[in-house]
């Protein structure tokens, strides 16, 4: 670019800033901020998704979300994912500590335990559909073959109190290795000499775990826990693919409910209000995380 190169650096700078930011900022505005603003506007209307007029209804949609126990109850289905996520993090920390110790074949174990994370989510969902099937499902066949015939008749996806935990355990299966790899990275960042000093001072393995390993992992544990919370709030594809929210809506998650309200029942206003409330929860959790993390850093 001979012409551009002959300009002064301050002119070049202006041209670069404007031309390099123009399209990316336009995309950011169009597909992140504009939808967010429109969402707020729709949430105060009872728009049906296609009519030109969007009648203003004030806070009615928000009253409906908080007032209708049917809608808010859906969050209790998301709770199973949160509970399983906590267990998932504990197991991930355990395997990370084990794989960070001196052990033969640890690379192979790490590779295998992480494997589910890179698998296609929809394929995994159907895979578990087969595993959980009541009559032919391999889980029940396996349970029967090891003598647990009492458990081997279970309808894993057809029992109301159980279905969310069955689905959440699929999430556990898929994401435990992901958490584990993050925990391993944080363990490797702990300086070796801290452990050496502790050994010289006569600390046992449990003491080193409690006094050195876990405190050093604290920020990463917090990060993973917050990811667990936001992940649990945003669950969609697993129940959508596997159970379609059944039996009788028992496994419907909040995002599924939003999608259904908007695209199946054409109630965009209500769906927008539901989205704003979810957005509010997620942002609240993330801000809480920032607050907790920065406080942890200062101490």
């Amino acid at each position: 670019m001979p012409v551009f190169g002959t300009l002064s650096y301050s002119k070049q700078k202006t041209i670069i800033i404007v031309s390099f930011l123009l399209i990316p900022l336009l995309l950011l505005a169009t597909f992140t901020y504009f939808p967010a603003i429109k969402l707020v506007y729709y949430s105060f209307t009872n728009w049906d998704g296609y009519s030109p007029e969007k009648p203003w209804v004030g806070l009615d949609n928000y009253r409906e979300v908080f007032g209708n126990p049917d809608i808010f109850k859906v969050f209790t289905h998301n709770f199973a994912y949160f509970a399983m996520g906590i267990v998932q993090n504990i197991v991930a920390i355990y395997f990370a500590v084990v794989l960070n110790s001196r052990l033969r074949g640890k690379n192979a174990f790490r590779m295998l335990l992480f494997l589910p994370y890179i698998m296609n989510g929809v394929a995994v969902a159907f895979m578990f559909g087969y595993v959980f099937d009541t009559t032919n499902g391999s889980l029940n066949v396996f349970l029967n073959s090891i003598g647990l015939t009492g458990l081997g008749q279970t309808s894993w996806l057809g029992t109301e109190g159980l279905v969310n935990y069955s689905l959440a355990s699929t999430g556990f299966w898929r994401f435990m290795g992901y958490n584990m790899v993050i925990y391993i990275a944080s363990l490797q960042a702990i300086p070796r000499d801290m452990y050496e000093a502790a050994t010289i001072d006569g600390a046992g393995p449990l003491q080193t775990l409690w006094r050195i390993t876990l405190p050093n992992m604290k920020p990463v544990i917090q990060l993973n826990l917050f990811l667990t919370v936001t992940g649990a709030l945003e669950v969609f594809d697993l129940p959508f693919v596997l159970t379609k929210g059944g039996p009788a809506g028992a496994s419907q998650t909040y995002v599924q409910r939003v999608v259904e309200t908007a695209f199946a029942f054409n109630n965009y206003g209500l769906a927008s209000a539901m989205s704003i409330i979810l957005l509010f929860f997620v942002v609240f959790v993330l801000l809480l995380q920032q607050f907790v993390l920065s406080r942890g850093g200062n101490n």
Partner: protein
Amino acid sequence: MGTFKFGVKDVIKYFTLLIGVFVVLFPPYVVIVNAFKSTDEFNRSSSLALPDSFLNFDNFVTVFQRGGLVSGFANVLIIIIITLTLNILFGTMVAYVLGRFSFKLKPLVFGAYLVATVIPSITTQVATFGIIKNLGLYNTLGAPIVLYIGADVIQIILYLQFIRNIPVDLDENAMVEGASLFKIYRSIIFPLLTPATATLVILKTISIYNDMYIPYLYMPKQSLGVVTTVLMRFQGVNTADWNLICAAILLILLPTVVLYFFLQRYIFEGVASGAVK
């Protein structure tokens, strides 16, 4: 006594690791063995039993004939290539401007990207839907492409972290030699950001390949299926034929698993650097 204690601990470690590996491999094992069974064989054998032959590829042939899987792979590949090219281009450009220059509106631009990271795009789809329709992108490959580029800002954050580690001296030396600012971007910044680009390519390829929500919402047209939506349709039509579904699952799992075996080191690094800031 010391060696004895060490031994017990090792037994516990290996025992729990083997349980973990068993749990991880059990579902894929079931899918693999059943994908090679004929319908007749599938009906009479246990779902845990090995197939008569691992050379029976009939199910895979049937999946390819019925499933639209070829166009599913083709569509997702086109989406991945275009998205990644533009992501890398825009990501490095924004990182160059924000990482190297100071200007009046910089805090605002910077803040806009930071705030965007906390807005989960899954919550705004109700409004995004109308925008995509108005732009005429509904039921085109353009819909997922613009959404993956415009609504996901993780690449900007990743590049900004990396550009801080590229010494400013390099830019200044090039300026002394009379290089234009564009040349500095093209011949210094862009090549030196390659490690970040590699991470981005791997993580984004996996996440786009695995995404169901956006293709399902924006590309319901039959011919625009990607692997996830093709699999959903295939399952809907062949609900009872689990041996066929197993074959389809296997075909869709294969590409990322193969990629993983070759690139695992980079994937681990990418996951770790994405989370541990």
